[in-house]
């Protein structure tokens, strides 16, 4: 029984660490202050759900989910290309709200606030992934491949350009690099992997509704990334462990769920504020938030 519980926890940690690492790629490495990252997660979840429920094989569903999310990443950069600093950040938050609105209102597609339940478990080449343990393997494999790829990207010469874009975009342009295109690529990749994470989420929880992809979750991933530190993959993964384990530890206090819910959020908020005030680089970050 403890086993089952640990497996459940690890699956969620796996999914959210991919979400955090993909955000860090855009935010920590490239300096794109994207508060709307949760929208890519939601888009991935809905697209994968709708495709698989329409009979599309899971492997194609998850890939298309990522691609669709990537498309929205492109659209976000396109829409906000003239904005800077906090206006850019605020616009990305607005983007998250607009996407949330779409989830809520395109009821013929998304069933609006009712959400979609009965999302099927994946089936890969005929092999049904219907136990939690096998789902954990799936998550570990997908997340490991994804994190490996992201890690390759940030260590490559292109990855260096991402960081240069963050540090001084003008200086980089004057060295002959097309920083607009660099930013597009960064956001598309970031969104792609968030979409993949969204698909994993949907097929595990088997029920999604718009409220999973709203403000509270924006703060959750932001807290994880800031706690772990900017521009560190390891930091985001470890921070995901910490942040997701906290509510589990709280369970031992045997408090009613009406208290646990808000208490959890309060702890996240306090961690976020605490890191900003006293340790702005987070646990493993080497870069200041600008």
């Amino acid at each position, binding site marked *: 029984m403890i086993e089952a519980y640990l497996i459940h926890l690890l699956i969620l940690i796996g999914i959210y660490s991919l979400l955090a690492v993909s955000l860090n790629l855009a935010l920590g490495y490239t300096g794109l202050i994207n508060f709307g990252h949760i929208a890519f997660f939601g888009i991935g979840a809905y697209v994968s759900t709708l495709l698989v429920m329409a009979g599309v094989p899971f492997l194609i569903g998850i890939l298309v989910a990522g691609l669709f999310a990537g498309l929205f990443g492109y659209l976000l950069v396109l829409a906000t290309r003239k904005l800077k*600093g906090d206006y850019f950040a605020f616009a990305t938050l*607005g983007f998250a*709200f607009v996407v949330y*609105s779409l989830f809520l*209102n395109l009821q013929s597609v998304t069933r609006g606030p009712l959400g979609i339940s009965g999302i099927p478990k994946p089936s890969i080449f005929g092999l049904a992934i219907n136990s939690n343990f096998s789902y954990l393997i799936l998550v570990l494999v997908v997340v490991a491949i994804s994190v490996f790829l992201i890690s390759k990207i940030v260590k490559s010469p292109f990855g260096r350009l991402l960081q240069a874009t963050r540090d001084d975009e003008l200086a980089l342009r004057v060295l002959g690099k097309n920083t607009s295109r660099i930013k597009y690529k960064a956001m598309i990749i970031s969104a792609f992997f968030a979409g993949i994470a969204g698909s994993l989420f949907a097929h595990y929880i088997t029920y999604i509704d718009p409220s999973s992809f709203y403000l509270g979750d924006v*703060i959750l991933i932001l807290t994880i990334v800031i706690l772990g530190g900017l521009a560190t993959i390891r930091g985001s993964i470890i921070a995901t462990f910490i942040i997701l384990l906290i509510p589990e530890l709280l369970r031992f206090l045997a408090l009613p769920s009406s208290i646990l819910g*808000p*208490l959890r*959020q*309060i702890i996240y908020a306090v961690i976020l504020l605490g890191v900003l005030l006293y340790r702005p680089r987070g646990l493993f970050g080497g870069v200041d938030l600008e």
Partner: protein
Amino acid sequence: MSLLLQLTINGLIAGSIYALVAAGFSLIYKTNKFMHFAHGAIVVVSAYILFFLFSTLGIPFFVGVILTLLFSCLVGLIVYRVVYLPLQKKKASNVILLIASLGLLILLENLVQLIFGADVKTINYLGIVKGLSIFGAIITPLQLVIIGVSIVLFVGLFYFMKKTKLGKDIRAVSDNRELAEVLGINYKRIASWSFVLGSLIAGIAGILIGLEQNLTPTMGTMLGIKGFTGAIIGGVASVPGSIIGSYLLGFAENYGIWFLPSGYKDAIAFVLLFLFLLFMPKGLFGKKKEGRE
């Protein structure tokens, strides 16, 4: 015809509420040059304070109102001194302050939920009152009060900014902080006052909204978003602009659901927010040169 009138009145009421939120937010932005996203939470906190004092403790209503307003000012001041000021001292960028404000929003809203619970509460001061009929459109006395108080407040705010020393100091600091400091104005003091005043207006908003609607802990988020949208539409650094922008939002929402299903009401605000941020981030009445990047 009376439908049009009803929608207009509804727009006026919604606009007044949003304008109350936007005015405080804009005042704070104008003085401090960053987005205090947690402002909506101050509104909620105020509403719940009044609920606690009046409905739970049974304190006389108007005494409760005064105490609530004092509390709102206090919360605003604390938020500034404990979170924003230390960050500013460390030369935090606007983005960091924005993230901090998001954290504060979640913190305050969940504190409210922790203490009061997530169920819906009402402040039963007025009881069920029949609406008045004006040319076929219905408006309740409280709604008239909301519109009235808003207008009085905005006129008062206008004179405050123009005629009082504090108002002029605030305007000086918003126009050119360095110059103001050279002229002997204490920036920290003015910034603190901006939070006190902004939160006072938020307190008034919280009280009126608390009387008009039911209270839920998360209503601050949506109110905050609507207030910001109004401020962005009008011009976030201009208090009159933010007020006008909020009324425009109120009308846009209420006329909008004439054509769209009513579920799209919030979506109208989101879309307008996004569109204005993309195409007219300085708002309809924003100054051309704001010295912001």
